[in-house]
C-alpha cells in the first residue's frame, strides 16, 4: 500500500551526536499534493526534510534509525545511490543558491551531470531550458540573457531558477526549506502561485514559518514540536479546529 504514498516513514529517529532531533516519526504523505511542515525553530522540520534526500548524512555525527520509503522504495536500500536519489528528490533552500554559472548552465546543470553527453543534443537542451524556465515564468524575462551569470539575478528570480533547475531531472518529490523567507511579499506570492501550479505533477513538501503561507499553499499540514509529530491533517481543518492544544497555541501565535 505504501506504493501510493509519496513519503512513508516508520519509527524514524535521528540523532546529532547525543541530541535526538527526530523522535519516532511515523508519517504517510500522499502523492501530488503540497504538504506544509510547520513548527517552531529547532523542532526538526528541516532535519526531517533533509532526511528525505539523505543530505543529512554529510554531517558525520548524524545517526538515523527507522525506515523511509519514497514512492514505495526504501531510500536506505542497498541498491540506492545518492546521485539518483537526489535526482528524484529535488531540494530548494532558504537562501537561493544558484551556481556561479550562466542561467542556461544552471538550468542544465543537473541534467548534464546525470546523462552522458552523447545522449542528448544541443537542441534538446535548448528545448528543456525553455520549458523549464517557462514553467517558473522566467522565460519571457530571461530568454535574451540566458548566458548572463545567474548570480546577477534578483533573489526572487534566483529562487525561481533554483526551482527551474530541478525540473529537467523530472523529480518526483520537491522539498522546499523555507523557500520564501529571503523574499519580499511579492516574491513570496509569486513563488506560492508557482508551487500551486506545479502540484499534481510533483509531490511537494514545504517547510515554513509563515502560517498564512501554510494555509494558502498546502493541502495537508504537519505540526512538529521538539522532534515529534504532534498533529497531521488537512490544512483547512487543522487551522480551523486543531485537535491538539499545542497546535492551537502555535497556530494562534502564542509561541513560536
Amino acid at each position, binding site marked *: 500500500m505504501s506504493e501510493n504514498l509519496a513519503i512513508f516513514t516508520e519509527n524514524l529517529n535521528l540523532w546529532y551526536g547525543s541530541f535526538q532531533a527526530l523522535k519516532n516519526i511515523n508519517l504517510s504523505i500522499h502523492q501530488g499534493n503540497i504538504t506544509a511542515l510547520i513548527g517552531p525553530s529547532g523542532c526538526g522540520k528541516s532535519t526531517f526534510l533533509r532526511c528525505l*534526500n539523505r*543530505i543529512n548524512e*554529510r554531517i558525520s555525527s548524524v545517526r538515523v534509525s527507522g525506515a523511509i520509503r519514497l514512492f514505495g522504495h526504501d531510500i536506505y536500500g542497498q541498491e540506492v545511490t*545518492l*546521485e*539518483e*536519489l*537526489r*535526482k528524484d528528490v*529535488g*531540494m530548494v533552500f532558504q*537562501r537561493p*543558491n*544558484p*551556481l*556561479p*554559472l550562466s542561467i542556461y548552465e544552471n538550468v542544465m*546543470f*543537473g541534467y548534464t*551531470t*546525470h546523462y552522458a553527453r552523447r545522449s542528448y543534443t544541443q537542441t534538446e537542451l535548448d528545448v528543456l531550458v525553455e520549458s523549464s524556465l517557462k514553467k517558473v515564468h522566467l522565460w519571457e524575462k530571461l530568454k535574451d540573457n540566458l548566458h548572463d*551569470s545567474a*548570480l546577477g539575478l534578483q533573489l526572487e528570480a534566483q529562487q525561481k531558477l*533554483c526551482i527551474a*533547475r*530541478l525540473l529537467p*531531472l523530472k523529480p518526483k518529490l520537491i522539498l522546499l526549506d523555507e523557500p520564501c523567507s529571503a523574499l519580499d511579499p511579492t516574491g513570496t506570492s509569486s513563488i506560492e502561485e508557482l508551487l500551486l501550479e506545479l502540484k499534481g505533477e510533483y509531490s511537494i513538501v514545504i517547510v515554513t514559518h509563515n502560517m498564512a503561507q501554510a494555509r494558502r499553499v498546502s493541502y495537508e499540514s504537519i505540526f512538529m514540536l521538539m522532534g515529534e509529530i504532534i498533529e497531521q491533517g488537512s490544512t483547512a481543518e487543522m487551522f480551523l479546529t486543531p485537535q491538539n492544544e499545542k497546535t492551537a497555541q502555535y497556530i494562534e501565535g502564542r509561541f513560536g
Partner: protein
Amino acid sequence: MFGLTTHLQNKRRKERRVSFLLGCLTLCLVLPIAFIVGVLLFKGLPAICWEFLAADPIRGMTAGGIFPAIIGTIYLVLLSLLFCVPIGVIAAVYLSEYAADNWFTRAINLAIVNLAGVPSIVHALFGLGAFVLFLKFGTSLLAASATLAVMNLPVVITATRESLEAVPRQFREACWNLGATRWQAIRYVVLPNSLPGILTGVIFAVSRAAGETAPILFTGAVFYKAELPQSILDQCMALSMHLFTLSTQVVGVPEAFPYGTALVLVGIVFAVNTLSIALRFYFRTHRKW
C-alpha cells in the same frame, strides 16, 4: 556644544604623532627595496644593450652577453612548472575536496608546511641525491627543474588549497543536491572559480624558481656552456648562477656586468609578479559572487 575641547585637542595631537611614527616605520620598510632597485638601475643599466641580452659570454665572461643564461632560466622555470603544477594542483584538490580529516591527512599537511620551511640548499642536496644520483638524471636541466619543482610544491599546493577553500561551500552543496558527484562539482563549479588563485600561486612559483640559485647549483646549472641545451639531459646556464659566478669567481669582469645580470633577473621576476597582481586584480573585479 560640538566644539573642540582641550581633551579632544590632546587626543588629536597624539593621533598625529602615532600616524607620523607608523608612516616613518613603513618608509624604513620600503627604503631597502628602493635602494636595491636604485643601485641596480644605476650600476646595471649601462650594461644593458642588445648585445648583452642576445649574445653569448665571451673572453672568459669578461665580454659578450648573457643570452644562454636567460634561456637557461626560462627552460628551468617552464620545466619545473610542468612537474610541480599538475602534481601540486591534484594534491591540493585531493586534500581539500576528498581527504577525510584524520591523522594521516593531518600528517600530510604538516609535511607540506615543513617542506615549505626547508632551506633551499637542503633542497639542493636532496635533488643531488634523489634526481642526479639515485634516478641517474645526471646534472641536467631535468634534475635541476625537478629540484625546483619539489621546492615549489608547497607553494602551489598552499595557493591552490586556499583558492579552493575560498569557493563558498554552498556552491558544492547546490551541486550535490542536484545529484552531482564530487568530481562533477569540482570540475564544473569549484575549479573554474578557483583558477585565478591557482594562477597566482603558479606565478609566485615562477618567480621563486627563477631566482633561486642553491637548488640548481649541484643539480644542473653550469658556470659556462657555449651552446644552448639541446635536450633535457643537458646542463644549462641560469641567470642566478651566472650572477653568482660573475660576482665571485671571475676576475676582470666589467663592473656593470653582474649588476646588469641582476637587473635582468629582477626585471623578469618583477614582470612576472606584476602580471600576477594584474591577474588577481582582474579576477577580483570580475568575480562572479
